[in-house]
Structures are given as structure tokens and as C-alpha cells.
């Protein structure tokens, strides 16, 4: 007999993870199924990490209300889950009186939405708030409640917390079919695994439309809006003290300059509608576009500082709002689709919203007396003082073994990642930051691979970058017939 659950969440992105954690506080048997080998490996991993300020959309949009509510919840979440988060504030820089008029509209949105502390600024105040801004700035907007997080760390922490409170996670579980019989959904994975569930939450990001179709629920189309971003070195002079937005266009919030919580600078993203959901490629044209746009905001942004680039995908729906509703065609099937920006910001509020929908539709929610919202804090070498490091090493010598020299990541942190289930190279990278610095793994990749082998008992051939066919090495010396090309 397949395992039977009260709730199945499809997708372990920030939305799915936040919902799972919320449900873990109640007496429910919940499972999260994820097609990738780790959580956060879809849309969420390439999120810009901005906790939005509540002024980009007007009050009529659901996403606007959830953004405001989500934003407020982040301080408490950080206390409980220890992911890197900083309320550094957001500025929107206008370079003409036309742009200033749009800024005034944003300000009105913010006031209407209830964005705390939002203000209009003149030229001087803009430069006071962000001295690296282009001196041609006419004026702009300041949202002190805006901030930045490490998006994958947020998702990892949410899922760790959910698991701690009894939620199960099934990775590499790509849903093939979902059938409803006798009030129970049977969900089958491509590899033949089966589970049963009373409720299904469709939080499948880019693939919500396909999942909905598989279950025979509503038909709709997720349009993928692709965004390319560049990451600059920690030493880049471009590092600002606030998130810097341009004045938005109709299609997107524009290409911005983001000072990440970990001290790197991110520039981008672009916004292009694409047909192929798996087209994660970057292009030269967009590279030029991003840098000229970023330099218009912050002139010291330099191509010399690039350490890497990547692509993110935004799952969008016609009308551009979130679609969070009970299915009208299938019982106890909840659509959580079109979660594009500000999805990350809204995620804790989305979780509450989904919980409320379930409650309204008959799910009995009994709080668990032993629910623990806190997870253990893994000490990070790079955030510790000399005295703390000395003590950490005394307690655990693996804190004295630096593996990633660019980001100062120790063996102890890598072991913690593997033990928490993040054992692909990208999983370890997102959990620890190892291989994320300026050498991009040139020095430490083989060391990490050895630790994975030791900790999990796997062989070098089993290690992947991010699951699937993303192997690193697959042969040993002597495996090929040599001398074939002499």
C-alpha cells in the first residue's frame, strides 16, 4: 500500500516550502514532492533575493496584499530560521521629470498598500541615501522596509523547519499522474513511486500548468519570463548600501543593482518571454544591456568584477497576478500558480493564505503542542570573531579546515550541509557558499567531492552538480583504451 498523507505539496520552491512549514504546525501528515534532487532548485534558486517594499503594484492585486504581509513576517522568520536577511532599504532612482511622475504613482501605491516609512526624495536626499548613485538622478523613492535575503538559504531553512516538525520530503519525484478516487488522490512519480493524499497543493512553479492538467484541474498557461543576472566580486566598488531600482516599465521592475546579504553585487535581471521553460542560457546581447542599464544607475559598476552569470525564470499568468484558489474542477486541489515577483517576499503570507483556504474548505486544523518554529543555527566561520573561531575549532576541529578559500567555508559547514541532505555540488554551494566566490570552485571542488564520498559512502562518479545527468567525473585512469589518438 502506498503511503497516505493528509496533504501533498507539489514543488519545493519557496512557495511550497513556506506552505509545508505552515502546515507542519498542525496535526497533519504532510509530504512535499520535488522533481529535482534538492529543494529550491527550480525558480527559487535564481531569485534576486529582494524583500520588496510594497509599492510596485496597486492594492487591487492579490500579490500586493500578500507582499505587504509577507514583508512584515520576515523579521520573525529570520529569528527562527537564521537565513541571511537585511532590511537595507530600497531606492528607486528617477532620471527625468517623466520618470519622477511614475515614481509618484509608486509612492501612492505604497501609501495605499500600507508600506511602512515610504517617502519621496529629492536629488540630494537620493544621493545621501545611496552615495554611489549616478549624480544625474533627479529624485526618487525610498522604501526603508525593503531588504535582501539569500533566497536558497531561505528555502532550505523553511524546509528544514518543516521536516523538523514532521513533514516528509521526496526529491527526484517527478509527478506523472494524479487520479482522484474515493476522496483520495493517488500520485505517481515517473520512477514508479506512489503516494496517496487527501489534499493536493500545486506549487510547481514553472510547471503549475502541466500539473494542473495532469490532475484534470483548470487549464491555463504559465508564460515564462526569463531573466539573466550577473554577480560581481565581493571587492567590487559597485557594492551599494541599498537595493537600487530604476523606474519600472510596463513589463518588469527593470534591471537593478543589488547589494547581496553576503557582500557580492548582483546586476540584472532582464525580462524576456520565452517558449522553452528549460532555456537557461545567457546571451551576449543581454550582457551588454544589463551593464549599460546598471551603469546608468550606479556608474562604478564594472565588467571587470564579474564572477559569474546565471538565469532565472519567472512563472507568469495572464493578468500578472498570483492565482491562489481552490480548484473549481477538482476537490481539495489548490492552485498556487503565477508566483512571480514578489513571490519570495509574499511566500510566508501565501502560506497563511493557503492554510486559510484549506480551513474554509473543511480541513480541520489542530495545532501541534510540540511544534518548534526554531531550527539549529549552524555557526559560520566567516561570521565569527577570532575568539569564536578558536572556540569552534576546539569543539569541532573541522572548523579549522578551510575548504573554500574565497568564501572562507570550513569542512564543518560542508559536513552540516551534507547531513542536512544537500549533497550535490550546487546543494552544498547554496547551503554553505563554497564554490560561490571568485574562483568558482577552481581550488575546492575536488576537496568537497572527497568529503561527500566520505560522508555518504558514494563514489566520485556518483557526485553531480545538481542531479540528473550533471555528473562531474565518470572515468578513472585506465578506463579508456589509451593510445587511440597518437
Amino acid at each position, binding site marked *: 500500500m502506498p503511503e497516505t498523507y493528509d496533504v501533498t505539496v507539489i514543488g519545493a520552491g519557496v512557495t511550497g516550502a513556506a506552505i509545508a512549514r505552515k502546515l507542519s504546525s498542525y496535526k497533519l501528515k504532510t509530504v512535499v514532492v520535488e522533481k529535482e534532487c534538492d529543494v529550491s532548485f527550480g525558480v527559487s534558486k535564481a531569485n534576486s533575493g529582494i524583500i520588496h517594499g510594497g509599492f510596485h503594484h496597486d492594492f487591487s492585486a492579490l500579490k500586493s496584499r500578500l507582499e505587504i504581509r509577507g514583508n512584515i513576517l520576515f523579521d520573525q522568520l529570520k529569528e527562527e530560521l537564521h537565513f541571511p536577511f537585511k532590511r537595507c532599504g530600497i531606492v528607486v532612482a528617477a532620471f527625468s521629470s517623466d520618470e519622477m511622475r511614475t515614481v509618484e504613482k509608486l509612492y501612492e501605491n505604497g501609501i495605499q498598500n500600507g508600506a511602512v516609512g515610504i517617502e519621496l526624495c529629492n536629488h540630494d536626499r537620493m544621493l545621501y541615501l545611496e552615495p554611489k548613485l549616478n549624480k544625474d538622478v533627479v529624485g526618487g523613492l525610498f522604501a526603508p522596509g525593503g531588504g535582501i535575503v539569500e533566497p536558497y538559504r531561505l528555502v532550505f531553512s523553511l524546509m528544514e523547519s518543516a521536516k523538523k516538525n514532521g513533514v516528509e520530503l521526496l526529491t527526484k519525484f517527478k509527478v506523472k499522474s494524479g487520479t482522484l478516487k474515493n476522496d483520495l488522490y493517488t500520485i505517481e512519480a515517473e520512477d514508479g513511486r506512489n503516494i496517496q493524499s487527501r489534499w493536493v497543493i500545486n506549487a510547481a512553479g514553472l510547471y503549475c500548468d502541466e500539473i494542473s492538467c495532469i490532475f484534470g484541474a483548470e487549464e491555463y498557461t504559465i508564460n515564462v519570463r526569463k531573466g539573466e543576472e550577473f554577480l560581481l566580486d565581493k571587492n567590487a566598488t559597485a557594492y551599494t548600501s541599498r537595493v537600487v531600482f530604476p523606474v519600472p516599465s510596463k513589463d518588469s521592475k527593470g534591471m537593478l543593482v543589488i547589494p547581496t546579504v553576503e557582500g557580492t553585487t548582483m546586476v540584472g535581471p532582464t525580462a524576456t518571454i520565452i517558449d522553452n521553460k528549460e532555456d537557461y542560457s*545567457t546571451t551576449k546581447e543581454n550582457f551588454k544591456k544589463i551593464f549599460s542599464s546598471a551603469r546608468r544607475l550606479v556608474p562604478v559598476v564594472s565588467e571587470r568584477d564579474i564572477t559569474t552569470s546565471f538565469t532565472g525564470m519567472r512563472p507568469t499568468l495572464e493578468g500578472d497576478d498570483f492565482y491562489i484558489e481552490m480548484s473549481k474542477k477538482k476537490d481539495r486541489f489548490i492552485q498556487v500558480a503565477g508566483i512571480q515577483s514578489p513571490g519570495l517576499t509574499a511566500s510566508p503570507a501565501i502560506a497563511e493564505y493557503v492554510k486559510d483556504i484549506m480551513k474554509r474548505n473543511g480541513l480541520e486544523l489542530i495545532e501541534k503542542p510540540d511544534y518548534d518554529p526554531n531550527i539549529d543555527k549552524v555557526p559560520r566561520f566567516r561570521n565569527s570573531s577570532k575568539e569564536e573561531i578558536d572556540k569552534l575549532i576546539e569543539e569541532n576541529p573541522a572548523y579549522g579546515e578551510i575548504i573554500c578559500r574565497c568564501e572562507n567555508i570550513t569542512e564543518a559547514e560542508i559536513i552540516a550541509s551534507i547531513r542536512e541532505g544537500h549533497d550535490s555540488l550546487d546543494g552544498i554551494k547554496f547551503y554553505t557558499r563554497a564554490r560561490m566566490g571568485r574562483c568558482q570552485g*577552481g581550488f575546492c571542488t575536488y576537496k568537497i567531492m572527497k568529503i561527500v564520498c566520505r560522508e555518504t559512502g558514494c563514489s566520485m562518479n556518483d557526485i553531480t552538480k545538481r542531479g540528473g545527468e550533471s555528473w562531474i567525473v565518470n572515468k578513472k585512469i585506465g578506463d579508456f583504451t589509451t593510445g587511440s*589518438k597518437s
Partner: protein
Amino acid sequence: MKKIEREVLIIGGGSAGMAAAAEIAEKGHSVVIVERESTMGGILNQCIHNGFGLHRFKEELTGPEYAERYVNIINELPIDQYTGMTVTEIDDQKDFKLVYAFSSHEGMVEFKVKAVVLAMGCRERNRGNIGTPGSRPSGVFTAGLAQRLVNIDGLIPGKKCVIVGSGDIGLIMARRLSWVGADVQAVVEIQPYPAGLTRNIVQCLNDFNIPLHLSHIVSKIYGKDRVEGVDITPLIDGIEAPVQTFHIDCDTLLLSVGLVPDNEVSKKAGVIISNQTSGPAVDGNLMTNVEGIFACGNVLHVHDLVDFVTEESIRCGSYVNSYLEGKTKGSQYSVMAGANVRYITPNKFTSDSDNKFYLRSMIVKNQAELVVSLDGREIIRKKQKHVQPSEMISCEIKADLLKSTGLNEKSRLEIGLKS
């Protein structure tokens, strides 16, 4: 926290650090080497090919053999060696420096020293640095990482490889991968001339019939999980000619696209980094702008032969000795790269002793001339049989030649290459 006091601390136990340490210890000064890996030798340990030591030892050695020679030398001398220990910070207290390092067996250690020698070597430039478009699959390696996997761990990164950049490590790896049975499809070089030594082009590519595409770039990487192929586009007069793009199927892409001195610790200590070399700007004593902090080897500028690293580091050691003995050579005057010179180091000279400079050409030329001028007046003109960017040029200038010329504080030495 453990506290240790010595005269000199050397960061890095590779070829540069060991040579400098030996020179300092031979003069009776107390010196400690802090090396982050578990053994001394640095990158030499994975360079198992031959061609090392022709200048220094007048014989042909492999990288590990060259390293071993120096390990034996430093083991004979009273040199403290800490391996598996990483330096995180240099705190300049003027008269002395506090250097903080840690390891799993020692915990945090505070070294109190009079001088520090930076000898951390360099790192490889990577995909982000050259901005190769396309998808981001597994299978893109820097050549040095691939070299490590093959030579130390016996692992093969892939079966069908394309190599970007004709730097020496890339060329050596083309041969190495061929030897272990992988299929090296092509080496792609953006410049119209090879980036590596001529002898490596012959021995590593020509001997294995591996095509070298000069003035070409990898313009796109394909593959969802693992590399599946690359587009290669020629450059015509420096501009991409997309119509002539061709595709190669491969599962591995190796990048040998240059090295960058690794100066994170130096920067934190306030050391000024030269835009030209990406290493510290140093005076004629190989001392940085921070008094008592010296630099040598690949952390100063990227060398093409280890023999030159050793030569420079021995000199560095002797300058440190002079510094400790209060005999540091006096006035330093500025040095500037002249025509067709990409960089020159050191960036200062003295008239109290002979000066040695290393420089790199921006041009490829037979029968070039090296021209040294002081305040606009030519003082040396020397024939160079052949110059190219990949081959470092050394230039010695005797003190007498400089002394006789009446130097003032604005004096400037310029070294250029005439075609």
C-alpha cells in the same frame, strides 16, 4: 589563542615561499612558513610533467621533483613550517605585524613578526571572467582543476573535450587528456597567437594532431545537465563573424584563460594592487606600500617558468634580510612601462644596487629591441631575438649606469620594446 613570535612570516609554501624562506633562514633570521594545504610545494605538486628546473638546477625535472628539491633545502634549515593552516588577516602595527592564522590542530594562532612575505600564488580565471554565453551545465572546468583531478586523484573529467585558451596549463592538459584516452577535439584561442610557450604548442598539440584555432572564441555552451557541445566563432579583425560559426559536440570544456594573483589577504592589509599585474605594486626591494610587507612569485605577477619564481623569491629573501638588518637600499625612483609593454615589475628602482625587472610584451615580433630610457634619455638598447606576450622578458640594469646620471625625485625609468 596561541601566540608565536618570529622575525619573518611567509604566507604560502609553494616555490616562492620556500625559496624566500631558505634565503632568510640561511642568514640566521627566524622564519615561519604558513601553508594552507597539507604539504609544501603548492601547485608544483600537480604539475607532473617535465620541463622544470632547466635554469635553476640545470636539469629537467617534474613539478613534484622540483618541489622536493626545495622541501629538502628548507628541511635542512631552521624553518618553522605550519601546514593545513590558513592566514586570514595581517594587522599592521608599524613596528611589527600581527598575523592571524588557524588550523584544525592549532586553533587560532597569532604570529608577531617584523616582516611578512606574500607568496600565495595565483588562481585561474574562470567562465564568469571571460563571459562565455550559453547554458550552465556541469562539465566546465578550469584546466588546473582538471589537472588536479587527473594527476592527483586519477579521475577523468570527460571523454570528449574542447579547451578554451592556449595557456600552458591548457596545452599540458590537452596532452595529458589524450594520454589517458580522452578525445581532445580542439584548442580555441582568442588571440591571433598562442598564449603558451612555443615548446608546449609543439609537444602538446602538434604531436597529438590537436587542432589549434587561433582568433576564435567559444561563443555558446550547450547542455542541460552536462555539457553537450559548443559553438566556435572566428574573429575577423577582432570582431565575431557569426556566419562562420561551427559546432563541436563534447561533454567537457576546459578553460585555460589566464591566471590572476591571489591577493585577498594583501588587500585587507592595505597593500596597493597594480592594475597592470593584479599583484602588489612593489619597489626595487620587492616591498609593497606597507612597510615590512614583501611579495614574490605568482602573487606578485604571473610567471611562466618556476625557475624565475625561484630567482625572484631568493632576491626577495635577501631584501627581507637587508630590511631586518636595517640595510634597506635607499631612494626609490619610479619605473614605467614604455611602448608595447603590458606590464613591468617592480614599479620602483634604486641607484644603490643593481636592479632586475620582469616585463611582458604586448606584441609578437622577431628582432625587436628593448629600449631603456631614463628621464627621456636612452641608456640601454638591447636586441631581443623574439618577443611575444606569453614569454616573460627579464632586464637587468647595473647601479653604475643609473648612478652616473644625476637622479632627482622626479626621475623616471621607462622600458619599452621597439619593433
